[in-house]
């Protein structure tokens, strides 16, 4: 037996040398918990046991005392635990706890842990969790109720617990959590009809740890029709109804709504302009369509074919009358002419109504009146020469704009530009008028005058109306400057076309007092040619010697060189004139300053200025 023991010891030594055995590893206190603040339990984790059976012991010291005590109960709480019962537990006292692992070869102490029971309270789960379905006017709801864990003494106020519960539908991932405070009952609303719900509850002391979740309680919500949905359905139906009514009304009034929201865009109204043609992309056709035959007038020298515009001379006192008349006339004329201009056609700024005053269809009486007025209103004249009576320079204080002049302006039917004006200038001059002139009208637009009428321009007091019978007077008449008298006044004589009959004494030198446009230079100046005709000189001694140099400059102020008073009226009308050419006169070309051939812009700004070298022949 002695040998056996020795052998055993030798074997042990051998094992020791080989390293299989050793002192125990260091144990570790994992946690200490108290369920009700009256008892507590500590658990530890053993280290390696060193291959030998190891025993563990827990020792503690209370605060500020050096007495060491050992754990009173190692078994109640299970393996590797120490249970402190009520007698051994002191609240608000600091415990210093250590675990020792011991085996045959040694022992090992764990790190000490300080514990105050007050701060390690973790209660058990709440008990008796009951969920019931209750009915309400808005629908069913869940009522969850529970009780505190049995051991926790909330009744005496020793522990205060707060609760929390969570709910979810069966099959869902996320829980819906609710804090219930200290109450032991909770209501859950807004349930899905027919759903299966899961409910859990847990609790915590005011300073401590949350308990575990209670076991799941299942509850099924019965089927019901949610009241909210019915309200929404009603609202939806009502709004749909209103919507249909609105749509119907909108449909009825679609036109006016469209007109209000999307006002029609005025389109171009060019005579001969075909949108379709343009869309088709044939530019040649489009532009050729625009070309109106017979425009611009070239060689057809009928004065009837041409519209003559002339400036109007007006006097202030008759201004309103003229204006009134002008308005009526304008409308009347336009209608009678059957002007193609539409209501939404644009009109240039030069298009004042007075410009468009038509005397077409006007009776003689009117013409008479006009003439009368013209005579009455005359004061001193502007020095004007030639056919550019378009000069409405009026030396009176209230100046007249060209377009306000009395007289007649005819619109070119296919052109809506400001029209060149050609005013008859029944100038008042002191000298004696040779003859009464007749204004010749274009035949094509107006009925030929039945009788000829004479205009006599008397002194300022006005002419007697005797000479002013102008039956069937045409609206356009041309005036020709006969001569310039001593006082620098232009003496006019009307022109007449071949179709006009005159009796008597109109032997005017049908002097070509027109200026022919040579061209427009870079400075936007109309260059007029001087027409010198031999015939003129031959015919008439009274002729005005045409030593006229016309120079057309840009300006809406017509001036004469002699009297430099300027018209300060509206610079609207243009002084381009168009004159018919006498048939017997041989002119190379019709040198009118034709409105149609000049750009509207330039027209507005054309000023005809003539320098006269008076040469009273």
């Amino acid at each position, binding site marked *: 037996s002695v040998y056996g023991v020795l052998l055993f010891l030798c074997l042990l030594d051998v094992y020791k040398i080989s390293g299989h055995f050793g002192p125990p590893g260091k144990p570790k206190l994992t946690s200490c918990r108290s369920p009700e603040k009256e008892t507590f339990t500590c658990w530890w984790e053993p280290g390696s046991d060193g291959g030998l059976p190891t025993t563990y012991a827990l020792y503690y010291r209370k605060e500020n005392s050096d007495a060491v005590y050992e754990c009173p109960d190692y078994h109640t709480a299970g393996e590797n635990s120490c249970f402190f019962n*009520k007698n051994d537990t002191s*609240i*608000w006292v600091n415990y210093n706890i250590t675990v020792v692992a011991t085996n045959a070869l040694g022992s090992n102490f764990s790190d*000490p842990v300080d514990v105050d029971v007050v701060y390690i309270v973790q209660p058990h789960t709440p008990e008796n969790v009951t969920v019931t379905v209750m009915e309400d006017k808005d629908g069913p709801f869940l009522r969850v109720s529970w009780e505190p864990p049995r051991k926790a003494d909330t009744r*005496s106020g*020793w522990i205060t617990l707060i609760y929390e519960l969570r709910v979810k539908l069966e099959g869902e991932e996320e829980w819906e959590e609710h804090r219930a405070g200290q109450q032991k009952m909770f209501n859950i609303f807004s349930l899905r009809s027919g759903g299966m719900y899961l409910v859990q509850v847990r609790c915590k002391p005011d*300073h401590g740890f949350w308990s575990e979740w209670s076991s799941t309680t299942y509850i099924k919500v019965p089927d019901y029709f949610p009241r909210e949905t019915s309200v929404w359905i009603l609202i939806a139906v009502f709004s749909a109804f209103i919507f249909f009514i609105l749509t119907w009304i909108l449909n009825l009034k679609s036109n006016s709504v469209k007109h209000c929201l999307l006002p029609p865009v005025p389109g171009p109204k060019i005579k001969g302009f075909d949108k379709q043609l343009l869309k088709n992309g044939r530019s040649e056709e489009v532009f050729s369509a625009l070309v109106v035959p017979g425009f611009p007038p070239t060689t057809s020298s009928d004065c009837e074919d041409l519209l003559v515009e002339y400036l109007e001379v007006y006097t202030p006192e008759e201004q309103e009358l003229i204006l009134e008349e002008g308005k009526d006339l304008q409308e009347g004329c336009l209608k009678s002419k059957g002007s193609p201009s539409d209501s939404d056609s644009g009109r240039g700024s030069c298009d004042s109504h007075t410009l468009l005053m038509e005397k077409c269809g006007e009776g003689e009486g009117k013409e008479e009146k006009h003439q009368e007025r013209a005579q009455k209103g005359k004061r001193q004249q502007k020095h004007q020469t030639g056919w550019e009576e378009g000069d409405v320079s009026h030396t009176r204080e209230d100046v007249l704009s060209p377009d306000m002049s009395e007289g007649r302006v005819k619109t070119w039917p296919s052109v809506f530009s400001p029209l060149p004006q050609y005013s008859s200038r029944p100038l008042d001059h002191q000298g004696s008028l040779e003859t009464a002139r007749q204004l010749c009208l274009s035949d094509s637009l107006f009925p030929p005058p039945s009788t000829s009428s004479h205009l006599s321009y008397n002194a300022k007091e006005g002419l007697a109306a005797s000479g002013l019978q102008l039956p069937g007077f045409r609206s356009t008449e041309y005036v020709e400057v006969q001569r310039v008298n001593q006082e620098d006044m232009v003496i006019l004589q009307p022109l007449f076309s071949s179709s006009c009959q005159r009796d008597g004494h109109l032997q005017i030198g049908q002097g070509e007092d027109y200026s022919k446009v040579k061209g427009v230079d870079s400075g936007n100046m109309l260059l007029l040619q001087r027409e010198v005709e031999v015939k003129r000189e031959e015919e008439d001694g009274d002729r005005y010697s045409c030593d006229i140099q016309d120079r057309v400059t840009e300006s809406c102020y017509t001036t004469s060189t002699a009297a430099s008073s300027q018209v300060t009226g509206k610079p609207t009308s243009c002084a381009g004139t168009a004159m018919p050419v006498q048939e017997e006169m041989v002119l190379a070309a019709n040198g009118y300053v034709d409105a149609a051939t000049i750009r509207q812009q330039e027209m507005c700004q054309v000023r005809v200025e003539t320098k006269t070298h008076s040469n009273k022949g």
Partner: protein
Amino acid sequence: MPENFRSVSAVWVGLVCLLFYSRLVRVGAAPICTNGQAGCHILSLADLFDRVIQHSARMHGISSDLHSEFEQYFFPSKNHIGRVNRICHTSTILTPNGKENAQRLAREELTEVILKLLVAWRDPLWHFQQSIAHHHDFNNFSSNKALEMSDMVHELRKGVEKVAEKMQMLGIISNSVNSLTSPEALIPSDRAEWRLMKDYVLLYCFRRDSNKVQNYLKILKCRIIPQHEC
């Protein structure tokens, strides 16, 4: 138009002010009086208890915050804590250490203990707050908390005294409590001790004592008014 707008807005402002004033007036209208004086709103004992318990809960919360802050900044390693000898100056006051002990105490005694604790902490907390304010290691947040804590101890003591008065008036407890409320009579010898306490130990001790106060108050309340949240 602007005049209209101005007048309307003035009316609105006036209405709002009136609303606020009425609310304020309502809230502050009734001073609490426990003696049944005329013209004041009498709080029930339950309400008084609720108030002081809420107060003590808040006080304990602040002390916990300050303590954990201290621990975080000044004692990062756990080992250091273990070596600190924590002796609180209130350890001379006998306080029940368990539920049974607390329930065994009479109401008057329990009230006395509470008052003793509160009285014992008034001066140390005031000094602590002073030292915190001058110490630049602490931020404003901490010094505000310390100030609040110090004030709360004062307020809580007054509150508990009122509760005691009320209870005496109601005949729940005897009149022996009043004689102990003077701070000088309670713990004259502690004055020297707490001056030696370090800040950390002070916070540790106060945290525990405020928990005791809260707990004792709850026990007292549930013993006297059992039906109310117990």
